[in-house]
């Protein structure tokens, strides 16, 4: 049976879009910014506190302290000692967790709405009154070291990722891993954590995001009764970091490891983020990453995987949210026997082609539809929306920036995309990282892994 085929159809018309149009925002006298995103479908609330501090704000020699502190934030206060907060979350059937990035640290609970006030009380308490002892802090440092082993040291690809970042971000703390360098991590103390805590954990340096079955009025009064009681006149910490340097040199980092069975390659460029870009440039990079490698009809996938085929997979992504300049990455996994430099050269040629000849209308339409559809899908999940706003507001964007993002994406032209490729991805300065199978000869393997 033949049908009217969807392929014959025009791209679906998504109309004028606003991300979370009913979201609103206000600021308490102590500087705490509050974002409310109503979703009345179920009597559930996601409560997130975001601190405008991450691993890129750590003092020299203390890499990993932002993340270690995140773990220690679950160790209690004078009012709520030990694990009372977590026990209470569990008793009310709530879920909780926390995460740390380069630029932010966030804590959240998801609970039924009548427990929200209690959660806000607990979270406000630990913003100010964390108590730490060596007895609870020392085992937690071991936990974090195990986390580093699990995430990085058992995975050669993650170790290569650390080397790639350390090489790309010259003169900038994004080059240091969020979880910390092993030797510095091993020497962190709870005093280090408390110093960091006292410097950065304040209402004026935080954003409260509440999504779910609430109204702005309810939240105004609850926030005032809890977080509003903490004095702070210092305002937002000024994250004036040294600028990452754009080197003209291309750089190559390679990791050969006996644990690698499948080689791969990636190339990273230092590019502007939404916070550092000229108007429209970050949006153009978003569209460019979609056209170049966002799906399996993209330029990279079509050329490297479908047509030649040189690779089993290929793509690109752009880390758009960051306080400072960020990265644009192209990656590929080779077919057996295909040298990595053949793939890298081909990928560079594809980028050069966009820089020289631009992109087509159909590609533009597909990329736009795909990014804008993601805005509509995001509205289905209160926790997704809370994360979108939290990460944007702690990396230099405003509520309006987030809401109007679809409009700005829709306004990107083919010429903008071509200019972005020409300006940021051609010429020197890229860092290529290769994950390689170690030579199987016994002495070569030992040389590659001398510490064992």
């Amino acid at each position, binding site marked *: 049976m033949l049908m009217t085929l969807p392929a014959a159809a025009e791209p679906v018309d998504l109309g004028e879009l606003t991300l979370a149009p009913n979201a609103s925002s206000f600021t308490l006298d102590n500087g705490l910014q509050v974002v409310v995103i109503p979703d009345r479908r179920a009597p559930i609330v996601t409560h997130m506190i975001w601190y405008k501090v991450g691993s890129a704000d750590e003092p020299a020699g203390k890499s990993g302290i932002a993340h270690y502190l995140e773990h220690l934030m679950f160790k209690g206060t004078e009012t709520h000692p030990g694990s009372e907060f*977590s026990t209470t979350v569990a008793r*009310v059937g709530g879920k909780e967790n926390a995460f740390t990035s380069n630029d932010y640290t966030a804590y959240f609970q998801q609970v039924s709405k009548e427990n929200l006030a209690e959660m806000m009380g607990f979270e406000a308490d630990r913003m100010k009154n964390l108590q730490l002892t060596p007895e609870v802090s020392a085992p937690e440092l071991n936990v974090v070291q195990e986390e580093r082993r699990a995430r990085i040291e058992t995975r050669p690809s993650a170790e290569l990722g650390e080397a790639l970042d350390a090489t790309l971000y010259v003169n900038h703390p994004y080059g240091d891993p969020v979880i910390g360098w092993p030797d510095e991590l091993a020497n962190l103390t709870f005093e280090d954590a408390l110093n960091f805590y006292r410097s950065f954990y304040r209402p004026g340096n935080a954003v409260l995001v509440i999504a779910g079955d609430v109204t702005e009025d309810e939240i105004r009064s609850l926030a005032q009764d809890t977080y509003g009681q903490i004095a702070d006149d210092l305002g937002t910490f000024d994250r004036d970091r040294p600028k990452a340097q754009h080197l003209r040199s291309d750089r190559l980092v390679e990791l050969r490891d006996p644990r690698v069975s499948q080689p791969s390659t990636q190339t990273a460029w230092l590019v502007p983020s939404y916070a550092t870009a000229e108007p429209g440039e970050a949006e153009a990079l978003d569209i460019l990453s979609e056209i170049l490698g966002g799906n399996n009809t993209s330029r990279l996938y079509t050329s490297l995987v479908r047509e030649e085929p040189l690779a089993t997979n290929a793509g690109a992504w752009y880390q758009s949210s960051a306080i400072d300049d960020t990265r644009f990455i192209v990656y590929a996994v080779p077919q057996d026997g295909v040298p990595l430099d053949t793939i890298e050269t081909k990928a560079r040629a594809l980028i050069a082609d966009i820089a020289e000849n631009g992109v087509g209308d159909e590609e533009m339409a597909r990329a736009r539809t795909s990014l804008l559809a993601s805005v509509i899908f995001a509205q289905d999940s209160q926790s997704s929306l809370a994360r979108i706003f939290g990460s944007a507001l702690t990396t230099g964007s405003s509520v309006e920036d987030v809401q109007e993002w679809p409009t700005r994406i829709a306004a990107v032209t083919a010429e903008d995309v071509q200019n972005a490729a020409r300006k940021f991805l051609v010429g020197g300065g890229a860092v290529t990282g290769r994950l390689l199978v170690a030579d199987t000869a016994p002495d070569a393997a030992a040389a590659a892994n001398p510490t064992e």
Partner: protein
Amino acid sequence: MYYALNRAIVAVAFFAASIGSASAIDIQEVTTPKGVSAWLVSDDTVPVVAVDIAFKNAGSSQDPAEKAGRANLLAATLDEGAGDLDSVAFQNALLEGAVQLSFDSSRDHLYGDLSTISSSVERGFDLLHLALTQPRFDQEAVDRMKGQIIAGLRREEKDPDTVVAQLWARTAFPDHPYGTPSNGIPETVATLTRDDLVAATRGLAKDNLMIAVVGDIDAETLIPLLDRAFGDLPDTAELTDVPPVEPETGLTVSETIDTPQTAIRFGGPGLAREDDDFIPAFVMNHILGGGSFSSWLFSEVREKRGLAYSVYSYLAPFEHAAIFGGGTATRNDQADEALDVIRAQFERMANEGPTEEELADAKAYLTGSYALRFDSSSAIARQLLFIQLEELGMDYIDKRNALIEAVTLDDVKRAATRIFGEGVPTVAVVGAPAG
């Protein structure tokens, strides 16, 4: 039109300390003229439709041993071209239509996940129809997906966590499909052909199809779309019988990978979902190692001793085996200590059991958090599909918390005795031996 045979308005109750509140979920069971049934929750608040489907028992346990990875390759290739649309045309139709479509296989089942915005719901169902009933399996697409899967398997080949999971499975299920890696190994995937995929599609039929639809669509609109998407499927799935199996107990196996952390998996017999003690066992497992920050394993292994970042236990009632299992990862020289601490918690559970307060806390968490599984259309669709697959009944959402509330300390102890009395869990260890 005849539909809406059945309708249940169930309350997802919150078990809150203070005020109880409930959110009504209005589930309709619709059946089409061509005999396709689906559970539907209509809610037009967000302009999105989430469709979760499963072909029961069409997962990787259907793969012949020498064709391990067949169901996984099928899932990867179904959206790689169908009908008149080759791979590129099909993928572009998804992108241009704002339609997200993906397939996935588990040990037991083959899943499909369709998400559309309101205005593209017809396109979504039409593309799903093509994928299920007229997949092309062009040689180019089959080879490309095989290459991608093999590269993925190689990437994990020396990852301790992957290696230990496979080691445990083949030790616990030596002569059963559950012992084989569900995505296959590079050697078996390399031999798979288009004919193998065609053979695997015989497991996709109306009689093992389960459908959950949630979001901005009503029954009247949905019914013809269900017939368009699924009406042409064969009536009866051709499935191989998979025998029931009990995991082997009491074995300890290890493999060496030169890596700084040792990965540990343990597992033995659990309880089947239809067992009267399943819910007590579920509560027992929550207290022991079921994922909260207050479980015994979390407290003893992580919080007090700092031995691991992650430590957990689970109950997995598969279709053909019931498993109690878990795992952790720790520095090589601490592996024995971590295992000792974990085993001591098994013994404590079998001999002493939890306190009344621990039981009350576990019940409060499990009942209270149930509602959180219904916080979005896609989450509700997942739950409705799960309830159908497990044959728990449309009123399960209403009954579920009462089942947990009814669990007594004696029930938990009995469940623990049954699980830990079945023999010592088989342990698999992968890392570099200390010293």
